[in-house]
């Protein structure tokens, strides 16, 4: 471990170790970019509402050697997600991928350290896709991850295979010996006509602060399918910039659900790039925030080719002094005729001190397209509260039911049942809903 006085100073002066080949040149370019751009500030449009430079003036530990982190399989057991017995499990500790702590049960899924995969049959795939997110996220924070990429993971699902076991990805941040700064990196390649489900979540262990700058790049080849679930319910001392960058090829299909509950400063970038025709993507998000939690969801759907379909629904319940930000971009390029792109963002504010900023951005350069967007910010519907109370429900119960009902159309898009019920109970805890008032399906 490498305690440093100030993480920004450290990166500004860091000397990159020599890495050969594609990864090496990618890192070198990224470091130059980082040096040029620095940490994004609120003066930049994309970072207007989310201030992260304060996080960079703190002291963190940097882990470069996994063997020096005392995280054991036993530590992880306590935190595994439900359904894990039937899942492939990938473990990152302080940003470094640990093959040793991971468990791969599907033979059609190849999981390798990225450096190792790059020297092998996957070198071309990696050369083609690694770092693609940098074309969309032209900022110092994305460059920082790429510049210092180490112990990254590479996943490949063989073509024509339907992965029967989902992939659970756990990110552990061990702060038992002080604050940690982590930069997990992964590249996922889903072969033609293959299909997989990915669930990703984050745990800070210990009472220190964790700060994570994560980049995950996913390639969904022709006719392939991806379901991706991100669950953020880490400690209030955890901050992260979490990027998921998805490239879709012909007729591929993706479905993502991002759940943000607890954390300090959380910035999510979700990019979906339709690089071929007839792609489809569904993007769902739910943030239930209170305390001082700040969650910023930036999404991009880029229609490069014609006949693609996207539907996006992000919903937020914001209480206390929390802040929820939604920024949804839809690009329709000149050639992307017959695009169908829909977007909606709905928010409920539960306190006077809660904040929501919502901004849809449509940039359309084709003429034969169907696009719509809408955004609402309001409080709980008084008329609905009265209706429920007039049937004998207390005010608290009525509120609970309305909030759960509000979250329902996101929740029901989690198709993995064990994960859905897990998230449902996390949401209830977050919204302080009594066990007694939880909506259940036991009578249908």
């Amino acid at each position: 471990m490498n305690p440093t006085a100030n993480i920004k100073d450290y990166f500004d002066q860091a000397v990159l170790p020599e890495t050969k080949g594609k990864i090496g040149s990618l890192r070198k370019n990224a470091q130059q970019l980082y040096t040029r751009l620095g940490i994004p500030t609120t003066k930049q449009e994309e970072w207007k509402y989310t201030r992260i430079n304060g996080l960079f003036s703190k002291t963190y530990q940097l882990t470069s050697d996994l063997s020096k982190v005392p995280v054991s399989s036993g530590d992880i057991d306590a935190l595994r997600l439900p359904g894990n017995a039937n899942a492939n499990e990938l473990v990152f500790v302080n940003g470094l991928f640990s093959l040793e702590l991971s468990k791969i049960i599907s033979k059609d899924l190849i999981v390798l350290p990225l450096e190792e995969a790059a020297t092998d049959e996957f070198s071309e795939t990696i050369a083609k896709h690694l770092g693609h997110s940098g074309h969309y996220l032209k900022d110092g924070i994305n460059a920082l991850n790429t510049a210092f990429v180490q112990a990254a993971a590479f996943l490949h699902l063989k073509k024509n295979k339907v992965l029967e076991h989902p992939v659970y990805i756990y990110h552990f941040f061990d702060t038992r010996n002080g604050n940690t700064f982590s930069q997990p990196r992964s590249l996922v390649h889903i072969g033609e006509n293959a299909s997989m489900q990915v669930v990703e979540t984050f745990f800070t262990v210990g009472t220190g602060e964790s700060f994570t700058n994560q980049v995950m790049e996913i390639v969904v080849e022709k006719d392939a399918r991806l379901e991706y679930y991100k669950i953020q319910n880490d400690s209030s001392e955890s901050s992260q910039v979490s990027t998921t960058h998805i490239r879709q090829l012909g007729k591929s299909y993706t479905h993502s659900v991002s759940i943000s509950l607890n954390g300090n400063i959380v910035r999510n970038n979700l990019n979906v790039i339709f690089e071929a025709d007839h792609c489809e993507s569904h993007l769902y998000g739910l943030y239930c925030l209170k305390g001082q939690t700040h969650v910023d969801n930036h999404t991009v759907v880029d229609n490069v080719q014609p006949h693609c379909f996207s539907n996006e629904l992000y919903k937020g319940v914001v209480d206390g002094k929390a802040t929820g930000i939604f920024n949804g971009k839809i690009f329709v390029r000149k050639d992307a005729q017959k695009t169908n792109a829909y977007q909606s963002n709905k928010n409920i504010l539960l306190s006077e001190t809660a904040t929501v900023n919502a901004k849809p951005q449509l940039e359309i350069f084709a003429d034969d397209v169907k696009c719509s967007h809408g955004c609402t910010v309001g409080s709980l519907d008084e008329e609905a509260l009265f209706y429920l109370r007039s049937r004998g429900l207390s005010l608290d119960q009525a509120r609970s039911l309305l909030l759960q009902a509000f979250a329902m159309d996101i929740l029901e898009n989690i198709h993995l049942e064990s994960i859905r019920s897990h998230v449902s109970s996390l949401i209830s805890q977050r919204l302080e809903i009594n066990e007694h008032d939880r909506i259940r399906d036991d009578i249908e």
Partner: protein
Amino acid sequence: MLTIKNLHAGIETKKILKGIDLEIKAGEVHAIMGPNGSGKSTLASVLAGRENYEITEGSVTYFGKDLLEMSPEDRAREGVFLAFQYPVEIPGLSTTNFIKTSVNEIRKYRGEEPLDAVGFLRLMKEKMALVNIDQSLLSRPLNEGFSGGEKKRNEIFQMAMLQPKLAIMDETDSGLDIDAIRIVANSVNKLRNKDNAVLLVTHYQRLLDYIIPDFVHVMYNGRIVKSGSKELALELEEKGYDFIKHEVSLPEEA
């Protein structure tokens, strides 16, 4: 059961109810008729406890208790039920789940054991048959995308499930065709007994062909200006509301 005395209520500076007096006894059916905007829904809402109305004068006693002091939920638990003129749509909340919560909250208040899934299903089956509602409607989210008639049917179903002592029905007949009206009326008639009472707000007298009221009251401009037997409804139907406006000379906006 219910005694309303000199009730005045309004919103902000607007006076809507300007002195309502009404006495309802167990076993009775009262109909309130009147032109649009006369304050019928306001009266119904005030009785159910809608909080955005301000009560400026008068009292409402329900089984000896001050009804106006009670929260909407306590009124429901004490047996007051309002069938809404415009039932609310709540996407994401299954109708069945909602009704189960409602039934069990009311049971809890009365010191009864909550119904388990089996007991609840049994009660539901029985009441579904009574009010002629389809299971498929009840497994959908509450009122979401229901037609006008389906929403009204759902209100009647909830009423059957909750077995109120005082049922207030706000234009449950509006927008329904004659078959649907007959079903609503039938359900209400089956639920009538000597221990409960019904306050029927209606714009038209045709519902009263099927539910025979003991009293008919005509409301106009925030007051009950005429009360009588069921024949009054027929007279209104024949002459229209204008005859009321002419017959009663009212002080304009007090």
